[in-house]
């Protein structure tokens, strides 16, 4: 079993993924920044990540998916900082022997992440044009929210389960 977690500054680059032997189901979910929120045109989302806790929580979620659903591997990447419309801010890759557990684990991981992982997004709205609603950010950056370009990588030490 292997669980991999990485917090990335800015948008996620295109994925380079290897399926590997023993995998019968390979699920890739990507979260993309939409162009509008609450009817207002969006430029980007600005992600605030409480990095040490978010990394631990994501890793725990990955381990839980392996234990509860029997999937083989879980890998997750999440952005910190600014991600523009159309760019990828979240990627979850789950490998399983069969599709049922891989798909179930994918949905459950995302549900739990949205409940328990300390990541917040604030909208960065496009300048309002006549007749449109304008928008503003809802909170300020925290000094603990890293924006240094550093990658925080967490890898479990377990061997891949086959």
């Amino acid at each position, binding site marked *: 079993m292997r669980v991999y977690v990485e917090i990335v500054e800015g948008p996620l680059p295109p994925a380079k993924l290897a399926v590997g032997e023993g995998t019968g189901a390979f699920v890739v979910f990507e979260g993309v920044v939409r162009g509008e929120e609450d009817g207002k045109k969006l430029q980007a989302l600005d992600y605030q990540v409480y990095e040490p*806790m978010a990394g631990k929580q994501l890793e725990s979620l990955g381990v839980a998916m392996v234990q509860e659903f029997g999937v083989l591997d879980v890998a997750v990447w999440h952005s910190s900082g600014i991600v523009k419309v159309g760019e990828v801010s979240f990627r979850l890759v789950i490998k399983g022997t069969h599709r049922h557990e891989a798909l179930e684990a994918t949905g459950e991981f995302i549900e739990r992440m*949205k409940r328990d992982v*300390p990541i917040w997004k604030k909208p960065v709205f496009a300048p309002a044009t006549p007749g449109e609603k304008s928008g503003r950010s809802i909170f300020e950056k925290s000094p603990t929210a890293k924006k240094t370009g550093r990658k925080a990588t967490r890898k479990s030490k377990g061997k891949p389960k086959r």
Partner: protein
Amino acid sequence: MKVKVLLFGAEQKSVGRSSVDVEVADAPRARDVLKALFEKWPQLKRARLAVNHAFVAGDEMIGAKDEVALIGMVSGG
């Protein structure tokens, strides 16, 4: 003793700071810190407490060197 509590997201916006200090009796538990927080900032009541990067129950002891954070509604993904 004084406990520093980190704030994020809507809680940070609501209080206007990225952290606050609360005064509690020595050897506090998580519930004591929450009580002190909520008395001063009632708008934070829906948030949970995390100590050293994990959510904790109300009876969790808090030490002087622990990292304490208030985690409100999250919105990752």
